[in-house]
Every structure is written in structure tokens, then in C-alpha cells.
């Protein structure tokens, strides 16, 4: 159960990372920082009072979307066609900047919040009590996965998102405003990270340090699940979430090692990820 709940927040985090890398080709080291930022937004809005959770959750997500759009316009745009090390340096710089700005704005102490309304009582699974919000979180992540899949595969704009990952110059020649599309995709990815951070707040206390842990876990999830595959990311998140949860129970010192072993195994035997597709042959 604990594993599933952390899988849910890992999924929200990783799916945005995968979306951004797939479309813009940018490895966003600051992705975990936006996860933290979403949590901070919600904490600041509710003033740490769980009563305002549902009310302010959409506001925190909207704020993350706006931050994503602004960051893309101001920073990402400038390095899109540059060599990779510029992009890595920039997103790493963003990570540091967001960390410091968060410290100034929100303080360096741990933030957390009580269980949101409707989920105050525990549920019993096999006689063991778990916070019922675990189920709420899993539901939210599943709904997000489904909506995202519908968007990508059943709407025209979603088709453009998939197309731009394959050939941005051609898409532009067909009349698609690719710079605008990039802003939308980046904002969406950051919005998902912020959503993940915000909904994790009742389960996990947030401080500026979570950004790095979060982005590393998200990378592992994406690598394991397969880049650009929503269901792969979901599977990766569940595997990593469960491995970390069970690892922490059985061999706490090695719980991190288990995830790396899984990642290494996947890289060796299925380098495109469990549910990723090997690149299509082009004739």
C-alpha cells in the first residue's frame, strides 16, 4: 500500500519528465524542484491547514502550469537548439535557483499537512490500518494517467505532441506553431510535477532537499518504464514504488540499491524500457 501511494506520486513526477524529454529533447534536472514547488504552493495557500486542501489544489496546479510556461519562454527556448551540455547546465542552474528562492520564500523547514477532507479515517487492508488517502492518491494518479492518454491519443493537439517528438522541422513546415506547442508541453509537464508534489504533501513532508531525490527517482522510473510510454511510466513507478517500500521493510540499508539493480537489468536487456518501443525502422 505504501508502495502504491509512492508509486502514484512518482508517476505524476516521471510522466512529465518523460513528456518534456520526448518532445523537447531536454533532460530537465530541475524537474524535482517543480515537484517541491507544487507542494510549497499548496502549503502556502492552505497555510498548512488540511481543510483547504481540495479547494486550493487546483490553484497550486494552475500556478505550476504558469511557472512552467514562463520558464519555457524565458529559459528553455534559448537552449533548445544548443548542445546538450548547455541544457544540462541550465536545468541544473534552475534546480539551484528554485531551491534558494524556495528557502527565501517558504523557509528551509519541513512542511507537511494533515489528511485532506474525506480521507481522515484509516482503511484496513488485511487487518493493517493504512491512511485512506493512499487510495485517494492512487485514484488521482490513475485519473491523470487516463486523461493524459486520452489527450495524447484521442485529440488532435495530442497527436501534435507525439509528432513533434519525431520531427519538429517537418511539423513546422505543415503549419504547426512549434514554439507555442513547446510552451504548452513544458507547462503540462511542470503542471504534472506540481500536481504530484501537491498531492504528496499529506504523505510526505517536503523540504528543499526533496528536489534532487525526486528527480533521480523520476529518471529511474522513466528508464525502467520506457521513454514516451505512459503505461511504461506507470509500470515503472509501481515497480520502483513497491521495491522501495518492500526494500525499506526487509533490508533498509539496501533499499536504494534494489532500484539501481532493477534499472541496470532493464538497461542491459531492454534498453528502450519495459514498455517502450524500439525505434521504428525507417526505410
Amino acid at each position: 500500500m505504501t508502495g502504491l501511494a509512492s508509486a502514484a506520486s512518482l508517476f505524476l513526477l516521471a510522466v512529465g519528465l518523460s513528456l518534456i524529454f520526448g518532445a523537447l529533447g531536454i533532460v530537465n534536472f530541475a524537474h524535482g524542484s517543480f515537484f517541491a514547488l507544487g507542494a510549497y504552493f499548496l502549503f502556502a495557500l492552505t497555510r498548512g491547514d488540511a481543510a483547504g486542501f481540495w479547494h486550493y489544489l487546483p490553484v497550486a496546479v494552475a500556478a505550476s502550469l504558469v511557472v512552467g510556461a514562463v520558464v519555457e519562454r524565458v529559459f528553455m527556448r534559448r537552449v533548445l537548439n544548443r548542445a546538450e551540455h548547455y541544457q544540462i547546465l541550465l536545468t541544473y542552474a534552475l534546480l539551484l535557483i528554485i531551491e534558494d528562492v524556495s528557502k527565501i520564500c517558504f523557509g528551509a523547514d519541513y512542511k507537511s499537512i494533515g489528511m485532506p477532507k474525506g480521507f481522515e479515517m484509516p482503511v484496513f487492508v488485511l487487518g493493517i490500518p493504512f491512511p485512506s488517502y493512499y487510495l485517494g492518491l492512487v485514484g488521482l494518479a490513475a485519473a491523470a494517467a487516463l486523461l493524459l492518454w486520452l489527450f495524447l491519443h484521442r485529440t488532435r493537439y495530442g497527436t501534435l505532441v507525439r509528432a513533434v517528438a519525431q520531427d519538429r522541422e517537418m511539423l513546422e513546415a505543415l503549419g504547426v506553431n512549434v514554439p507555442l506547442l513547446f510552451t504548452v508541453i513544458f507547462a503540462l509537464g511542470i503542471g504534472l510535477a506540481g500536481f504530484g508534489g501537491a498531492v504528496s504533501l499529506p504523505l510526505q513532508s517536503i523540504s528543499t532537499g526533496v528536489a534532487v531525490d525526486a528527480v533521480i527517482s523520476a529518471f529511474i522510473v522513466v528508464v525502467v518504464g520506457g521513454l514516451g510510454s505512459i503505461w511504461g511510466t506507470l509500470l515503472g513507478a509501481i515497480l520502483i514504488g513497491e521495491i522501495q517500500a518492500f526494500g525499506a521493510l526487509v533490508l533498509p540499508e539496501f533499499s536504494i540499491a534494489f532500484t539501481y539493480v532493477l534499472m541496470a537489468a532493464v538497461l542491459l536487456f531492454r534498453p528502450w524500457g519495459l514498455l517502450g518501443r524500439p525505434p521504428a525502422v525507417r526505410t
Partner: protein
Amino acid sequence: MSMLALEQLVAGYGPIRVVHNLSLTVGEGEVVALLGRNGAGKTTTLKAALGMVRVSSGRVLYRSRDVTRLATHRRAMLGMGYVPDDRRIFPELTVRENLEVAIKRGSKNGRGWTSERIYQLMPWLKEIQRRRGGFLSGGEQQMLTIARTMMGNPEVLLLDEPTEGLAPHFVRLVSDLVKELKSSGTAVLLAEQNLRFITPLADRVYVLESGELRLEGTMAAMAEKQEVRALLAL
């Protein structure tokens, strides 16, 4: 009024200039061939017209409007269509999705191409509409690339060596498609090396060598000249 005009165009890659002082026009409903052997600068010219290659001087006019500094996607929205020589279908998208991507929202110009009309013209394409682009044969990909650009209802179509490496069957299909476009009033600028292919299609011809214009004239006049064959190294 010409649909497309290049005026004294100089274009290239970084510091390298590939096309020198090139001027050409494509009139309404005209099929104009841009001939030249490998490396003559045909692709560079087409890409420069669309803003995909840097223009260092000269102008690109679309329907007398200066579009030299306009973003590629805006030129496409105005009515310029481009079919690249390297068949850049989206390999992970299905045939149908490849077509849908090219539908232009909020663009008023149009010859009314829809996927239904495309499928009428190419019934075999409808049968494979659920197949992913990466799994089509070279000829099928070439036809899909042209069909995809048609979905955007271009008023002028820049077509880059559409018959390169195609089996005779597909060369005939491409030829029929160009005729169909011409009869629907679309102007076409067709980069080619294949003289036999363009002879029945083109109204006028420009011949490039090393990025410079060597010859121009009507197809009928050009077909006579040995010089053209020499420039194409035939």
C-alpha cells in the same frame, strides 16, 4: 500575380553560400520544374523559400507579400506546402494520424482536401490507414508525404525530388497526383533530376548549376536543347 517569387536570393548554411542570386517565379496554377544535378542547390532553394534555410540576401514573395522574415509555420498557414525529398512521415503515427496532423485550423485558404477526398484518390491508402508510418514501403511513404501536405490545402506546393528511388509504379502515381494538383489549381515548384518525369508535367523550367541559374524557359523550348541534358549530366 505570381504565387511565389524568389528575388536575387542568396542562401546557405552558416557561412557557406549555396544558392547565389537566384530569381524565379511560379505563376497561378503553373507547374514549374527546378532542374539540376546532385548538389546543384535545389533542396536548398526550396528550404530557403520556406524559411528552413537561412537567407542572407534577396527576398521571398508569396502572392506579392514579402515573407522573407516570416516563421516557417506562418508561411505554411498562408498556403505554402512542402514535401521534403527524404520522406519525413512521422514513423510512430498511423497513416490517418499523419494526415490529420497536417489539417490547418484557422486557415481560410483552401482547395477543400479532406481525408475522404484523399482516400478517394488513393483507395489503397485508406486500407492501411491504421498502420504506423514507419512500416510503410518507400513508395507508400512518398505518396503519404504528398497526401499529408495536400491536407493543408497549399496554394503553392514545393515538391522535392518526389520520384527519387521509386519503382515505376509509384512514379506513375506521383505523376498522376501532380496532374490532379495542377487541375485543381495548385501551383507546383518541382525540384527534379528526372527529365522524363517532368517533361509531360512542367509548364516552365529553370536549370541550376552550382547554385546559379543557367537556363530558363518553357518546357517545350527546353526539351529541344542539348544543353539541358548536359547540365543534368545525362
